C-alpha cells in the first residue's frame, strides 16, 4: 500500500478519527482553554498563566502531588520486589506452581473499585477484630489516619498488581538458558551467587517494562483511591487524579481543573520518557 492509495486511508480512517476526536482534539482544546476562564460551556476571556500561577500556591493540589509521588515511589519498589519474588517462587519445581500462578494473578482481573471496597472491609472490620484479639493497638482505626490510609493504598495496590508484574518476570526468567545455571552450579556457585550473577542481570530488561507500567499506573490511580479512602481523612490521602476530578466536576472549575490536568500530563510524559531512555541505555551498557 502506498500513501496515495485510497485503501491505505480507508483502513486507517476509523482509528485515526477516534484517536483525533477522543485524545488529540481534547488535549489541544483543553490546553487552549486552560489559559482562559472557561466554565465548560464558554470562555469569555484569555487570562494567560493565571490558572497556572494559582496552582503553584494551591496547597490541596501540591499535597496531592506530593502524596502521589511518595505513593508511587514506595509502590514501584515493593511491586517489583514482590513481582520478582512471586515469579521466582512459581518458576521453581513446585507441585502447586500452576495453582499459585492462578491465585497470584487473580486480583488483576477485578476492578480497582471493587477491590478497594473489599479492602475497606478488611482494614476496618477484620484488622480491628484481629487487633483486639491479639492486643495489637496498631491494627485499630485503619484508614482513619493519613499514615494508615497511605499504607492501606500501598497494600491494596501491591496485592492487586504483583501478579501482573510476576507474569512479566516469568517471561524473562524462562528465557534464561538452563545450561548457564547448570554450568555455574558445576563451578561451585551457591544459589545466591547464581541469582546475583546470572538470573538478576538477565531479567534486568524486565525492569524497563515493569517499572514503566507500575510507575504510570500508580501515578494515574483513581478507582482504588476513591473506593478505599475517598481521599480522607480531610483529603490527606487524595491523589492527583482525584484532585483533578474534584476540581472539575465537584467545584465546576473547568479551566482551573484543566490547567492541573495539563501539568499532570507533562509530569507523566517526562517520567515515562526519562525512564524509557534511561533503561534502554542501561540495557545496552550491560
Amino acid at each position, binding site marked *: 500500500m502506498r500513501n496515495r492509495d485510497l485503501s491505505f486511508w480507508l483502513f486507517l480512517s*476509523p482509528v485515526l478519527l477516534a484517536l483525533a476526536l*477522543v485524545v488529540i482534539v481534547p488535549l489541544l482544546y483543553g490546553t487552549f482553554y486552560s489559559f482562559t476562564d472557561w466554565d465548560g460551556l464558554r470562555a469569555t476571556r484569555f487570562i494567560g498563566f493565571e490558572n497556572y500561577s494559582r496552582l503553584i500556591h494551591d496547597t490541596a493540589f501540591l499535597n496531592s502531588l506530593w502524596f502521589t509521588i511518595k505513593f508511587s515511589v514506595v509502590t514501584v519498589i515493593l511491586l517489583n520486589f514482590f513481582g520478582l519474588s512471586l515469579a521466582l517462587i512459581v518458576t521453581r519445581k513446585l507441585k502447586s506452581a500452576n495453582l499459585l500462578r492462578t491465585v497470584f494473578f487473580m486480583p488483576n482481573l477485578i476492578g480497582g*473499585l471493587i477491590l478497594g471496597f*473489599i479492602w475497606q472491609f478488611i482494614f476496618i472490620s477484620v484488622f480491628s477484630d484481629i487487633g483486639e484479639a491479639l492486643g495489637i493497638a496498631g491494627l485499630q482505626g485503619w484508614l482513619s489516619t493519613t499514615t494508615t490510609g497511605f499504607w492501606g493504598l500501598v497494600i491494596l495496590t501491591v496485592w492487586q498488581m504483583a501478579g501482573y508484574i510476576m507474569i512479566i518476570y516469568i517471561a524473562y526468567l524462562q528465557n534464561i538458558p538452563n545450561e548457564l545455571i547448570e554450568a555455574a552450579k558445576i563451578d561451585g556457585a551457591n544459589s545466591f551467587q547464581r541469582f546475583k550473577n546470572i538470573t538478576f542481570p538477565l531479567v534486568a530488561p524486565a525492569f524497563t*517494562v515493569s517499572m514503566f507500567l507500575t510507575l504510570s499506573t500508580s501515578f494515574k490511580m483513581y478507582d482504588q483511591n476513591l473506593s478505599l479512602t475517598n481521599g480522607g481523612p480531610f483529603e490527606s490521602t487524595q491523589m492527583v487524579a482525584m484532585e483533578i476530578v474534584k476540581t472539575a466536576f465537584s467545584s465546576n472549575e473547568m479551566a482551573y481543573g484543566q490547567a492541573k490536568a495539563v501539568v499532570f500530563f507533562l509530569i507523566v510524559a517526562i517520567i515515562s520518557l526519562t525512564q524509557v531512555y534511561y533503561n534502554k541505555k542501561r540495557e545496552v551498557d550491560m
Partner: protein
Amino acid sequence: MKRKTYIGELFALLLGLVWIAPFYLMIVNAFKSKKEIFTDVLGLPQEVQTSNFVEAFIDLDFVRSLTNSIIVSVVSIAIIVFFSSMAGYALARNKSKLSSIILLIFVGAMLIPFQSVMIPLVSLFGKVDMLNQAGLIFMYLGFGSSLSIFLYHGSMTGISKSLDEAAIIDGANKFQTFRHIIFPLLKPISMTVGILNVIWIWNDYLLPSLVLNENNATIPLKMFYFFGQYTKQWHLALAGLTIAIIPVIIGYFIAQKQILAGVSEGAVK
C-alpha cells in the same frame, strides 16, 4: 534436600493462602448476619444468610447492570479488534515515512493520561449529545486502539507479503485480501488484544461515571451507587461485591490459559 523442597512448597502454599484471604473474608462474611460479622469476622458463618444475596441482587439491579457491561465490553472489543487490525495491517504494508509517523503518533498517545483529556472530552461529547453508550464505545476505540495497533503492527512482520500478492493476482481487492487472508492469520494476536482490552474495559469506572446515566450503568458504576447506600451494612455490601465478582471468576476459569498468555505477550512487547 527433600526436606528443603517440602519447606519451600509449604511456604509457597501459605503465601497463596494469604493472597486469597481477602476473597475468603468477603465470601464468608457475605453469608453472615450483620450481628455475626460484628462478633466473629474470621470464622465460617454459624447460620447461612442467603437473604443477603437476594437483597443485594435486587438492589444492584444485577441483570440490567450485567447486560449493560456485556454490551459495552463486547461491542467495544469487536470494533477495537476489527479497526485496529486493519490499521496495523495498512501501516505494516506501507513502508513510507508517513506510515512510521502515524504509528509513532499512536504509540505516543499512550503517554497521555486519561485524566488530562477527560474534562474537554466530556464537554465536547456533551455538546453533540454523545454522552451515552454509543459515545462511550467510540471513546474506548480512541483510547484502546494505540496499544492494539502497536501489537498488530508488530505481529504483521511475521506474515509474508507474497500472500497479499497471490490474493491480488487471484482477483481479490485489498479489503477481501485483509478479511480472508490476513485477519485469520492474526487470530493469536487478536486474542491478546481482546483479553487486554476486556480486562480494562470491563472494570473501568471513571470514564463510564462521566458518560453514562443510571439507566445504562455498568457493574462498577452500579457498585459505586450500591456501596454508598450500604455503608455500615457490611453483610449486604459484601454480598453485592461477591455477586459483582462472579462473572469475572467464571471467565477466568474458562479462559485462564489464554488470559495469562495474553497478558504476558502484551506486557513484554
